[in-house]
């Protein structure tokens, strides 16, 4: 047991984070987590808008004008990116579970595809929302 503890103490530590290279699949995975947290935080706001929109006619119109305000639109845009990225990355993970695209080369390519698609959806929605 004592030997084991000594061994743990001797273990080398690599604290220079710049020496760690992030492959695209790792960037995508971190994005998946970050997007997930963002989606989690935004749940209460959507419950609020949902209940406002279903309360009555005026509430519905109120919800509509609220969603059309510039600040909320900006939030919606970030939310849409998070949802798109989380959705696509999730599908990629499901396919990986089925051993589809599991080879290293393809896994990197699909990771890039997920990141790119997320940004393309973001761009399309920003055009639709702001013009």
């Amino acid at each position, binding site marked *: 047991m004592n030997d084991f503890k000594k061994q743990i103490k001797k273990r080398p530590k690599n604290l220079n984070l710049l020496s760690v290279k992030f492959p695209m699949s790792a960037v995508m995975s971190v994005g998946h*987590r970050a997007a997930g947290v963002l989606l989690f935080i935004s*749940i209460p706001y959507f*419950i609020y808008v949902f*209940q406002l929109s279903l309360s009555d006619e005026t509430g519905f119109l109120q919800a509509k004008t609220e969603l059309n305000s510039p600040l909320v639109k900006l939030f919606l845009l970030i939310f849409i990116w998070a*949802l798109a990225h989380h959705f696509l990355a999730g599908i990629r993970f499901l396919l990986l579970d089925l051993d589809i695209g599991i080879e290293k080369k393809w896994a990197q390519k699909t990771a890039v595809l997920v990141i790119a698609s997320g940004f393309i959806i973001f761009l399309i929605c920003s055009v639709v929302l702001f013009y």
Partner: protein
Amino acid sequence: MSYQAKGLQAWFFQRVTGVFMAFYMVYVLWFSLSTELFTYQIWLAWFSHPLMNMATALFFIQLVVHTWVGMRDIVLDYMPGDILRFITLTCISLFLMALSIGMLRILFSLSFNIL
């Protein structure tokens, strides 16, 4: 289920809820894009339909399970210390339960209406 299989259970839940929510969201997107202009009547009728009302309630329950597994993973990965973890996880679970109650209250307040 044995203790060793608990991780498998979480992994499995994450996938099942993810697939259900994916189908729900594709349907919602399709319906929203194919509706020219949302009026209050259409909006209310949509969520008052028993199937949509139920599907939305199911969606939210799945969302809460999915969020719980995901946030738990993140807290266990990045948060040091048992006490800090315990407090954070308790707060997240209470928060998610409160959100579920709020959401189900809204859905249950709509009386079923088939077209």
